[in-house]
């Protein structure tokens, strides 16, 4: 779940989706109605795709997946409109399809059957142009509402799992991911390296240059660490000026080399903030747990912490490793 979220920038409510109309898919076998629908909808600015039977409608939704506003004729060769509705509703999709069913039948029984099959609305043929467009606008409104809710949900999900300052995983999400990494390493019988990265004398940065400069330093250190790690490594903000990285399948030597590159990536170039150009270094404690015996996350952190303590004690801007074998 968490692992599927890209730890990039926060998604913003999609402006493009709220200002342009949703494309419409029309499935209708009668050429006359096809033309009517295409003409009326295109004139109102809708992007219209037209197919002539139910199978094509399903295929269009499954393959292209762009149309979420569907106008389906009830009576089509092959799959009937209500069957297409049922089929679409059986598929689970986060993006809801709004379905308007066209029918020549206007008995209560038929209308109920159409709605029960999954249609959102129905229109009896021969329909009036104004009524058709009004009903399509209802669908458009529902889809916009859904888009908005999804965007909000995505934003909240991002905010709930990311550190607002650095954009990295926050402590809560980080621990969930670290637990998953430990479990995966145990399952696959592979090694797991844990890196604790701490900015040296960070308090001095805040004291000397102010908190905005301190924030800029945190942001830049996070950015440099992010580009140095592999896409599948876990990186998060542990708290304060401390970061955690978990990387699988490195031996102790490779892990130390990796940590050394992380350290050099910070110290090689001073960080330019709006207030000053600041020399920043980090100390790194690294622990590599081999496949056996299996270590708990708690043990790994303690071990890396001990290494970090040694790196600080031995002069900072350096890497220390503790073996966890």
């Amino acid at each position, binding site marked *: 779940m968490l692992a599927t979220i890209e730890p990039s920038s926060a998604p913003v409510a999609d402006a493009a989706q709220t200002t342009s109309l949703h494309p419409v898919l029309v499935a209708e076998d009668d050429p006359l*109605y096809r033309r*009517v629908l295409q*003409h009326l909808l295109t004139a109102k600015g809708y992007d219209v795709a037209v197919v002539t039977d139910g199978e094509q409608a399903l295929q269009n939704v499954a393959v292209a997946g762009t149309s979420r506003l569907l106008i389906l004729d009830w*009576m089509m060769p092959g799959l009937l409109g209500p069957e297409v509705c049922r089929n679409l509703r059986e598929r689970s999709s986060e993006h809801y399809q709004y379905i308007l069913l066209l029918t020549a039948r206007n008995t209560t029984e038929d209308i109920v059957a159409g709605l029960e099959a999954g249609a959102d609305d129905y229109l009896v*043929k021969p329909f009036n*142009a104004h009524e058709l467009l009004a009903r399509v606008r209802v669908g458009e409104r529902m889809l916009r509402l859904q888009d908005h809710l999804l965007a909000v949900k995505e934003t909240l999900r991002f905010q709930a799992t990311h550190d607002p300052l650095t954009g990295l995983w926050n402590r809560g999400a980080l621990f969930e991911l670290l637990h998953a990494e430990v479990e995966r390493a145990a399952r696959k019988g592979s090694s797991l390296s844990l890196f604790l990265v701490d900015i040296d004398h960070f308090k001095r940065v805040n004291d000397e240059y102010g908190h905005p400069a301190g924030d800029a330093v945190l942001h830049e250190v996070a950015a440099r660490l992010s580009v140095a790690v592999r896409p599948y490594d876990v990186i998060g903000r542990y708290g304060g000026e401390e970061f955690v990285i978990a990387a699988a399948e490195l031996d102790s030597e490779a892990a130390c080399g990796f940590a050394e590159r992380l350290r050099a990536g910070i110290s090689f170039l001073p960080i330019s903030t709006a207030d000053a150009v600041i020399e920043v270094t980090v100390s790194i404690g690294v622990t590599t747990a081999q496949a056996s015996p299996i270590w708990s996350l708690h043990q790994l952190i303690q071990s890396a912490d001990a290494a970090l303590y040694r790196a600080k004690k031995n002069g900072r801007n350096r890497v220390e490793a503790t073996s966890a074998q």
Partner: protein
Amino acid sequence: MPAVWDPAAALERVAGDKALLVELIAIFFEDYPRYHAALQQSLEQGDLAALQKAAHTLKGSLSYLGAKEGASLALKIEQAALESNAASARELIPQFTAYIDSIKPLMMSLSEEPDDAGNH
């Protein structure tokens, strides 16, 4: 049966877009021979499901175009097919064909009428 067609209802349906209605009429008569053949053929072959399908489509198109009598004849053919009443269908099809033939010139001449024709 007198050829009766009320373009006002059809024009209202397309929100007064006469050009569209003219185009739809052209589409209908372009496709009509195919549907007409389907009516005859499916009846001869005793394929009542195909007969019902063709009649259903004709009914839908004609009702959209405001050709009420044509639509109701097509509906009767559709129902006859549903009830497996081939004899009734055999009687209705010529009536239907005659109606379409009589109304075609009227419908096809819509484009020549002044723009406010039937739209009052």
